[in-house]
């Protein structure tokens, strides 16, 4: 029993803070119509690859660092805090899918290249309605002599544009499987969605007779494990973003003056900030527990992840709205960062199941346990 971060955790976090503090500059996004490309999306990724961040969760035997989910949380939290635009989400998602569903040969073929060359991945599971748990009938795989052909479309694919390989959930023989698809073939068409959160790159992908290779494991066993990890990612980003928002709002409240006093001297503002801080503490501990539980492969992990996602996203959404209110009108302009956090919060809340969906899942799990 030791609820404090280990020294290793702290070191990891400090180094991530150090790198991202120097690297990430959101100013280019504070102009209209800017995209992640303007904010160093590709360049930052190159540096991350040099730092070994492309292979954080890839086992050492495959050229990565083999970090646990808890270790990983140190880094992705900092990315959430800084809203770092870089294709980390997609590559992590793809790597997990290959790790969980790929044969040894498939892992050997792909993951060392991810870890060392920075091969970029993206995971295409959601349909046009944003559902990622469905039967995958929007995309179908057909067996050919040498492999598979995929037809159909996926949406809400994070980090697809510019990626090297897609891992695609597609229906085959009445079940859903995961398929490895070379993103650079003509049968794969990737289009940027006009996504409101300018710090993230989100795409729709069409497949027309795209060649594919099937990952060997059964999707029904694999997807819940991948999803738990992605939910942790979203929760960690959200909890850390929330903390950043609290900090920047407190700083503003100390400095902005109205009626002769800093606005942070008024109880109405003080108490809102106290509430935001308290919720940030809660979100933070919920995320750490979920990360630890996944790292330990605890039977409580799925539950803990659902709780962290629900709580952190709700609190993030509330705080980013509140932050704009406390900043006042200036916080509503495109040239301030407040709206970037607001939009990231809204997007994270919806991705892979809203807070309400996570809560329904939680009670499902508790009911099954009670039965």
């Amino acid at each position, binding site marked *: 029993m030791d609820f404090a971060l280990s020294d290793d955790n702290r070191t990891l976090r400090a180094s991530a803070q150090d790198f991202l503090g120097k690297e990430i500059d959101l100013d280019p996004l504070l102009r*209209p*119509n800017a995209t992640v490309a303007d904010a160093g999306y590709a360049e930052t990724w190159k540096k991350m690859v040099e730092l070994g961040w492309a292979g954080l969760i890839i086992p050492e035997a495959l050229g990565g660092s083999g970090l646990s989910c808890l270790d990983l949380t140190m880094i992705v939290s900092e990315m959430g805090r800084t809203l770092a635009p870089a294709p980390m989400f997609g590559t992590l998602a793809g790597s997990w899918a290959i790790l969980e569903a790929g044969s040894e040969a498939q892992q050997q073929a792909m993951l060392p290249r991810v870890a060392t060359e920075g091969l970029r991945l993206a995971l295409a599971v*959601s349909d046009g*309605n*944003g559902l990622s748990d469905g039967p995958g009938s929007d995309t179908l795989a057909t067996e050919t002599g040498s492999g598979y052909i995929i037809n159909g479309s996926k*949406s*809400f694919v994070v980090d697809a544009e510019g990626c090297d390989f897609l891992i695609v959930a597609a229906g085959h023989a009445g079940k859903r499987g995961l398929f490895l698809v070379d993103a650079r073939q003509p049968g794969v068409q990737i289009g940027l*969605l*006009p*996504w*409101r*959160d300018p710090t993230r790159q*989100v795409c729709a992908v069409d497949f027309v007779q795209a060649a594919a290779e099937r990952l060997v494991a059964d999707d029904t066993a694999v997807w819940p494990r991948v999803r738990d990890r992605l939910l942790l990612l979203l929760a960690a980003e959200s909890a850390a973003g929330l903390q950043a928002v609290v900090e920047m709002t407190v700083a503003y409240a*100390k*400095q*902005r*003056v*109205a*009626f*002769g*006093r*800093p*606005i942070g*001297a*008024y109880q*109405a*503002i003080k108490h809102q900030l106290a509430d935001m801080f308290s919720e940030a503490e809660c979100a933070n501990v919920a995320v750490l527990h979920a990360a630890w539980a996944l790292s330990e492969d605890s039977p409580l992990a799925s539950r803990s992840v659902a709780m962290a996602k629900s709580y952190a996203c709700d609190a993030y959404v509330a705080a980013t*709205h509140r932050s*704009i*209110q406390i900043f*006042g*009108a*200036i*916080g*509503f*302009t*495109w*040239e301030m960062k*407040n*709206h970037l956090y*607001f*939009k990231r919060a*809204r*997007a994270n809340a*919806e*991705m892979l199941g*809203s807070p*309400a969906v996570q809560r329904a899942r939680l009670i499902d799990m508790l009911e099954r346990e009670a039965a």
Partner: protein
Amino acid sequence: MNFDLPPEGDPRRLEVRAWFEAHPKPRFREMGEAGYVVPHWPRPWGLAADAELQLIIAEEIKRAKVTAPNLVNPVAINNCAQSLLTHGTDAQRKRFLEPALAAEEIWCMLFSEPSGGSDLGALRTTARREDDHYVVNGQKIWTSLAHKAKIGVLVARTDPRATKHGGLSQFLIDMDSPGVTVRPIIDMSGEENEYNEVFLDNVKVPAERLLGKEGEGWDISMRQLQTERVALSKPGAIWGAGPSARELVDGLIAKGAMRDPLIRDEAAKLYIEGEILRLLAYRAFSDRMNAKDSGPESAARKVIAAPHGQRVVDLAKRWQGMSGLVKGAETLPMPEHSDGLFDDWDYAFWFNPAVTLGVGTQEILKNVIAERVLGLPRDRDPTAKTPWADLLAAKLQTAA
């Protein structure tokens, strides 16, 4: 007590309807001459109309599918021009009122400043008297319509030796004067059609453009903002415009979304609140009809209305799920006729944080209720009684 609105057969309604049938595409100037632009004003501008007649005229304008002039020139017609009746000179009324009411000259309000926020009295723009004119220097922000306006209603400091509120005066300035620069503000929705910054650099304003006397600027402005509060508190999500809870519920029913009991309950709460806000708006109208001052109670309506609207667009957005993040994705339906930008559910959502920023933050509104309605002790403003120049010297306008 009678909650029915004026009936179809009401003789005054028939008269108004007949006028619009005779003038199918009226020019605003014609509507102004008929008294339909500001019916509550005295003649010759208005009809000295009671509240019921005002409501009839508003409804008939809508029915005739005529754009209401106050949508085009809201600052003049809803807020500021009325001050000329009480504080203006004959010459000012002659010069400004007709083109304002005909929406031939658009007005804007040059009130807020970057350093001020809700503490409007702390504004720094100065107007220095020189011979027959004033020289204005300063910066304004959050000015709607500045890019279209011919006339700016300016509040500026004419006497730095007076208190922060006592040294202010109001002017009607030409927005095309040399030294006036308008720059659009891009808000978080990504649009730039709503707000502007206005820079005032040695702008010469003729002395006859002073409204009222020097030092009356604070009182005149407060009255104008108070009017705005009444006008803004209808149940549309964005200051009365845009989607209302009725449209939310209609849309959710049409989309089959009410099958989700969480949405069902939340939508019902919003519907109820929306209907109550509708009643409160009518009641404020009715109070005026009974010559009863609705006064600071209207702050209570706004304090409910603003977060209500935010929750309406929030639920509509959450109904969209992931698609809600995609610009241009399918939203809940809106009625065919559109009154403006905010009738787009998606735009209304990304604009919504502003609703509790504009026109008195929630905190200020709650203070108004607590202090003026409930009689609780006032928040102390330590800067209220000190000469402005001394405040500046003591840097009481920067962080403590």
